[in-house]
């Protein structure tokens, strides 16, 4: 059953903004939920009145439907002083939650989907990078990813070679750590917390923890919205809707090592919610 693995993860179902004017009605893994604020003492209940655990982390309310939930991952940069933390609200996408994550991990699409912002022709080459599954945390990591970007961040001036690390700490969360122009020794952190509404629909919560003393909060949110909604029209047009885990169904290149590792990781753990397998 595709829900077996999925039930025991934590998922973002609200942020610190949306509960201010009243509860949020939402759906997680096919179950209708009501999330009631305030955010730091939020309650999560279903239609039958059952209560689910809730915690406030990374400016979002997280919940789980499982009886034996895994520990929620850490993103220590979120607590570092001087960083601006930017919850960006939620965007609904009619796609598999796993497709949303995989798109976030991909850089070869930058010149075509985020043209003149994250990439431009003819600088389309994806140079070799490093991918591993870190045993201690059982997470997929891609490091030493480099790409030339015309406008990598709001804090960037002209084009720069941006360096990225990617991390998948859970099936429907992806975190990227990127070159931080004002503070080259640090990394900006950008994540998407994907709330699976169903296997073919998700609510995506982008979140950032950056060093940027120039941009307004609105400017930072809008930059993230711009990038994410550019991806949305790709995500809603991929077929099959569910992410195929059979390697013969879609053809990866060397630029796709992160996605290959991600799909292999999902298959190994039986994380099939939103996936297409030979058994499904």
């Amino acid at each position: 059953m595709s829900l077996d693995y999925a039930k025991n993860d934590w998922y973002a179902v609200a942020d610190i903004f949306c509960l201010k004017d009243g509860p949020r009605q939402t759906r997680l893994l096919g179950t209708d939920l009501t999330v009631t604020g305030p955010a730091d003492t939020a309650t999560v209940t279903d239609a039958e009145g059952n209560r689910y655990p809730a915690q406030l982390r990374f400016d979002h309310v997280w919940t789980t439907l499982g009886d034996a939930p895994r520990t929620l991952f850490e993103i220590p940069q979120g607590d570092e002083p001087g960083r601006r933390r930017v919850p960006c609200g939620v965007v609904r996408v009619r796609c598999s939650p796993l497709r949303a994550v995989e798109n976030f991990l991909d850089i070869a699409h930058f010149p075509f989907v985020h043209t003149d912002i994250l990439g431009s022709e003819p600088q389309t080459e994806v140079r070799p990078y490093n991918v591993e599954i870190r045993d201690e945390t059982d997470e997929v990591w891609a490091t030493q990813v480099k790409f030339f970007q015309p406008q990598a961040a709001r804090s960037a001036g002209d084009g720069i070679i941006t360096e990225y690390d990617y991390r998948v700490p859970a099936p429907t969360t992806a975190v990227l750590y990127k070159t931080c122009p004002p503070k080259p020794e640090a990394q900006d952190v950008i994540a998407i917390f994907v709330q699976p509404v169903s296997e073919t629909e998700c609510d995506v919560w982008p979140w950032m923890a950056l060093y940027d003393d120039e941009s307004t909060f609105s400017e930072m949110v809008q930059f993230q919205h711009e990038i994410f909604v550019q991806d949305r029209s790709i995500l809603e047009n991929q077929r099959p809707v569910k992410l195929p885990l059979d390697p013969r169904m879609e053809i990866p290149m060397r630029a796709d090592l992160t996605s290959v590792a991600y799909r292999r990781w999902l298959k190994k753990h039986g994380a099939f919610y939103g996936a297409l397998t030979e058994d499904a």
Partner: protein
Amino acid sequence: MTAFTLYNYVLSGNCYKIRLMASLLGLDYETIAVNFYPGFEHRSDAMLALNPAGTLPVLTAGDTVLTDTQAMLGWLALNHDPSRQWYPAADPLLGPEVLQWLAFSGRLTNSAGLARLHAMLNWPVDGEAARRAAVRDLRELELILTDRVFEGRTWLVGDRPTIADIACFPYVALSPDAGLEHDGYPAIRNWLYAVRSLPGFTTMPGIHELHELREPADG
């Protein structure tokens, strides 16, 4: 010296009408990012003082404050178009036609625009009703643009693009964001392509670049 200041949200189709028109006219302008979503900043006291309607965009230039997108398009064309072709306001036939299409563009905001807000940002509106209204509006536009094909014409009014085309373009182009594809509207598809091919055209999320117009990559 910039031509105007735009209170802007990057995902707003209405704000994009102004960004697009300014780009087609080659204008420099200042942008103030308003936290429309998730902050609902357009309803803040400060923004309501500027625009009691609580909508975006807002355009300011000197003492002028404009809060309606159609008025802004008219202002841009009348003040910054030396060719006097983007809004032939004084033409007794073409002028009223432009006004009629500007009114139609308002209907599109409330049908296709609303359907998109519902589908993408979970706006608390009747999404199904908005979609039905959007289909009705898209079919109406397709009918008129099909007339244009019979007439050997490309644009909504007269023989060149006007603010009528720019006003109607965004929410039609973005209707797939709400699952309303253009398969049944070939005349609309060709008109969208004509707009996207204009010199100075600029995109917004959901409307892709015409990569075919770029220099081909080596290979």
